[in-house]
């Protein structure tokens, strides 16, 4: 069972400061039109650094458990 | 009959505050008001209240606002220079519509002036000492009895209109001792609790009346208060319509209720052709002058504002229409006379006598002045 992460970016709140992009160890994010965008979600290792480093509450990283029988997918505790 | 006591004006204020339900005092020592703090330092802890001497006047004013937001009645007391320092946060209390009572025991000014002598030089500072448009309520006692009663009234008005109220006394009234009758029953007005649940509550919502209720902290009503211009929710707004509406409501809650708030004493005015206009300790002197002049056959009376602000314009105009001459007497170099002229000037002659040297003006001087003016006309 391999963990997969979904990164949600709230574009309304993102001010394009670039901090998340600078700190992401796997270059998952990129700045486009002055907003952070997820460009390679499959590379995300779930370190949550982008979420912690965002001064604007604009990034949310959620863990999704993959390859489990259909109908019993679970997101994390949220 | 209530209990008879012989106390000073400052102690009467302190004891009346407890009676009114005041449970918090923050202040900074300043002559001639310090006895209010001293007495409350003794009394408050006995009534489960808190007394704190803060690091300055600014902090004292801030602390009473904070305390009031928890739903408790709060007081501070000071004199001229300290009152100047309180102005910033007093403005905040007006903007945030937070009920508090501030006692200003006037002394001679400007600046450090005459710490141990009286003055009536803060009349306009009380009205306009802060920046921005605002209405303020100020009560002026002329005896220890009134110091006691007006303190309670000040708390009542503060709660009723959700606004700071100033009790304006002076060194004479606050330091002297005379007997008072402690009333057995007094009316105490407590803060109105919101009638709506927290999710429908807005601290500045004027839709149901000019004075929206102020929810105490810790009861599930979580709201925001700022000194910035704000909308009904309390959050900042610079929308001109919202800003204007909010400010107008804050002014109107006093203006439209002025008949309920304003009170005057009419002393021997029924058949009077002349009147003295004076307040506080000078009104007491003026009463003596009135009696003395009456004895000499001069039909004179005294109009005394018990509420300095809002000003007793209607009452004054009413008398001005009937009177030949109004004599304004005050312990300063011309403050309230401007207001009297503004309203009464159209209808009758207004003359002024006053000075500020730290002494009550003796009756003889005023008598001579009035007789001279009457004679001239």
């Amino acid at each position: 069972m391999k963990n997969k992460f979904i990164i949600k970016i709230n574009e309304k709140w993102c001010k394009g400061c670039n901090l998340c992009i600078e700190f992401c160890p796997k270059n998952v994010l990129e700045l486009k039109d002055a907003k952070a965008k997820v460009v390679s979600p499959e590379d995300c290792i779930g370190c949550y650094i982008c979420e912690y480093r965002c001064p604007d509450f604009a990034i949310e990283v959620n863990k999704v458990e993959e390859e489990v029988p259909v109908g019993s997918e679970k997101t994390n505790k949220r | 009959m209530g209990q008879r006591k012989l106390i000073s004006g400052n102690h009467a204020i302190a004891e009346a505050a407890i009676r009114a339900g005041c449970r918090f005092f923050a202040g900074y020592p300043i002559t001639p008001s310090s006895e209010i703090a001293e007495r409350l330092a003794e009394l408050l802890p006995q009534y489960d209240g808190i007394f704190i001497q803060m690091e300055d006047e600014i902090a004292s004013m801030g602390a009473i606002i904070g305390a009031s937001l928890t739903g408790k009645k709060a007081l501070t007391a000071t004199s001229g220079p300290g009152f100047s320092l309180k102005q910033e946060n007093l403005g905040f209390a007006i903007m945030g519509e937070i009920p508090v009572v501030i006692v200003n025991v006037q002394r001679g000014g400007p600046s450090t002036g005459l710490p141990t002598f009286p003055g009536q030089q803060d009349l306009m500072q009380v009205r306009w000492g802060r920046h921005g448009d605002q209405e303020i309520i100020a009560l002026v006692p002329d005896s220890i009895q009134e110091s006691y009663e007006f303190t309670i009234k000040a708390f009542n008005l503060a709660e009723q209109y959700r606004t700071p109220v100033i009790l304006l006394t002076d060194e004479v009234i606050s330091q002297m001792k005379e007997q008072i009758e402690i009333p057995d029953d007094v009316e105490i007005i407590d803060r109105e609790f919101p009638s709506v649940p927290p999710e429908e509550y807005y601290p500045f919502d004027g839709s149901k009346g000019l004075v929206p209720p102020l929810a105490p902290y810790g009861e599930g009503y979580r709201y925001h208060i700022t000194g910035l211009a704000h909308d009904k929710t309390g959050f900042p707004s610079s929308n001109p319509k919202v800003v204007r509406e909010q400010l107008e409501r804050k002014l109107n809650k006093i203006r439209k209720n002025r008949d309920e708030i304003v009170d005057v004493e009419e002393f021997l005015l029924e058949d009077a052709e002349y009147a003295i206009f004076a307040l506080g300790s000078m009104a007491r002197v003026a009463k003596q002058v009135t009696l003395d002049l009456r004895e000499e056959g001069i039909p004179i009376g005294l109009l005394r504002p018990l509420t300095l602000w809002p000003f007793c314009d209607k009452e004054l105009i009413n008398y001005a229409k009937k009177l030949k001459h109004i004599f304004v007497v005050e312990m300063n170099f011309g403050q309230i006379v401007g207001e009297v002229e503004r309203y009464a000037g159209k209808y009758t002659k207004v003359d002024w006598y006053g000075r500020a040297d730290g002494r009550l003006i003796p009756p003889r001087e005023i008598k001579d002045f009035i007789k001279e003016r009457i004679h001239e006309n």
Partner: protein
Amino acid sequence: MRHEIQLVGQGGQGIRLAGAILARAFGIYDKKNIVETHLYGAAARGGLSESELVISDEEIYYVKVQNPDVLIVLSQRAYDDFSEPVKNSGVILADDFYVKNFKGDDKRLTLYPLTRIALDTTGSLIAVNVVSLGLISALYSVINVESMRKAIRDLIREKHLSKNLEAFEEGYKLGDNR
């Protein structure tokens, strides 16, 4: 009828306490209208101490003393600065230990050994206040001596009370013998 009593001296002579005793005797026990005012705080720091009372059966409007009926002076400065406004029919009671220089022949003035009596009866200068109170209680018929004794009992601490009452009676005798 309006009566005005003024006490002036220097710090340490118990002037304010004497004023408070008078105020209490008149105001609480005799049920007269009284107003007590005084120099206080920094104004009195120069050594001057003062208390003044207006007593009346009617409302008191002007709260300050204008022309005292009785002035007690317990220091030279007190006499120099405060004696002038005293009524022609009024009395100035001066302590002979401190007040030595007088203006001409002031018919209002009488000297009394107040400080000496205080020292003799209590061994302390401060009791000059109650000696003075005893004296005016004897001389001034407006004052009810019984009310004064009650007020002294209220306002003077237990451990100093008997000495002070004794000093009061000595002062009273001083006036009574006259």
